[in-house]
């Protein structure tokens, strides 16, 4: 499925660029992302605890960044597979200055959702993707605005934020582990356009939404 969307992030373009290509940021903003393992330059293996409501599960895949034209654009390739389905996506991301304080992000994704989920999940996929996209952009924006710590109490689970990201070296490969966190409150205001669909999220395997790959 082809999906496009855009969002406004409240930081200058170079900071947005830095955040989106920083595994330390990604690991704490990608919905459900538990671990990013760097296996090469701009190449990560991801472990994602993905899902909707209490239907959730562990999912593993990989993420590559390419075609980096800093600070204008890059392409993300994401793929992964679980028992009930597969997901792969190429996401073209473009950043444009809105003003000195904010950046408009546009993305074009070509996502392939295969397996059982592709055949029976149609009714729900875009809705779930959109919800997850909002979550992701809000989380990134929170990081950019330095209010990441503020997000968690909003959903009322105490004591799960503010923990440092753990970086452990496993052989040569840095491994980024997300701190425990609650789901950030989403803010639709940061997402533009009626057809915003979170294909970006495909890289987190979250398009599988309600999959559980046990």
């Amino acid at each position, binding site marked *: 499925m082809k999906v496009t969307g855009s969002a406004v992030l409240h930081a200058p373009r170079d900071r947005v660029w830095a955040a989106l290509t920083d595994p330390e940021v990604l690991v704490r903003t990608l919905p459900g992302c538990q671990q990013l393992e760097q296996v090469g330059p701009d190449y990560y293996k991801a472990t994602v605890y993905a899902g*909707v409501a*209490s239907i959730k599960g562990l999912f593993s895949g990989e993420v590559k960044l390419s075609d980096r034209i800093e600070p204008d654009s890059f392409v993300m390739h994401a793929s992964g597979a679980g028992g009930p389905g597969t997901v792969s996506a190429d996401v073209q991301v473009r950043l444009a200055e809105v003003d000195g304080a904010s950046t408009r992000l546009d993305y074009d994704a070509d996502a392939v959702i295969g397996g059982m*989920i592709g055949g029976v999940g149609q*009714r729900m996929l875009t*809705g779930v993707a959109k919800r997850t996209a909002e979550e992701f952009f809000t989380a990134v924006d929170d990081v950019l605005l330095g209010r990441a710590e503020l997000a968690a109490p909003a959903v009322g689970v105490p004591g799960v934020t503010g923990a440092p990201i753990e970086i452990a070296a496993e052989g040569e490969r840095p491994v980024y582990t997300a701190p425990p966190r609650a789901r950030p409150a989403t803010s639709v205001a940061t997402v533009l356009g009626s057809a915003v669909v979170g294909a970006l999220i495909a890289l987190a395997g979250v398009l599988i939404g309600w999959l559980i790959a046990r």
Partner: protein
Amino acid sequence: MKPPPFVYHRPDNVDEALDVLAEVASDGKILAGGQSLVPLMSMRLAAPGHLVDINGLSELGGIRIGHDGVQVGATVRHAELEGDEAAFAVQPLLRQALAYVAHPTIRNRGTSVGSLAHADPAGELTAVLALLGGTVTVRSRAAERTVPAAEFFLGPLESAVRPDELATSAYFPALPPKTGSAWTEVSRRNGDYAICGVGALVTVDDDRRIVTARLGLISVGPTPVVVDVSESLVGQRANAATFADAARLVEDTVDPEGDIHATAEYRRHLAGVLTGRALANATERALEVTT
């Protein structure tokens, strides 16, 4: 298509159920009617490690009717609520909408509270709860809280029920005086998920003029959409009211997605058309109860 293995819990009371939930956290799911959960499991899209079967918990059964509304326990089947004359008398929209929930055979097992907790954006009862301003009561081992409809539906298939919580009942306020209700929807086949569904509440005054008019819509957004169209109708003679402005307002408000059965544009169009029809029916009923 066979479900994956899970540990089966059949607690003897709600506290025991909550203990299990607290322990297994997000690896657990409540099994009530199972009419959405079991197919998800058979397709292996869901694979909870633990199922907590609440079907035997009599304390979660029963429909309690008051003048102010209808309280529905967690194990009440759609069919039971649909057939309950007292509930119909207090809040007719329940039966009007439940008649569109899948097929009777599914309604014999599926639970009303379960379908709210499942938060399917095409679920009729989500919009009924939202339109009526109802609540869902949820309990965990630590606390009980009552969540208003406006805060209950967070996203597609995502409700405010946390992994350690059990939705114990839902509360649907009574139909106010001089008010009529209606539900209408378009689906591809009889019993399918609605392409668009609309519930309406219209209140008239003694002079048979419209006072308030509100709508609850499904399948046109990630969660049920409530639109207050009173302003476009207030003061109109109910028997001569035209609903074109209200329909346009609804069309402008909803933000549906397209899918393999219908384009987003068609869904939006239907939201307008069905708004007109639901308002007309509800107004007619409001007049009936006002004479």
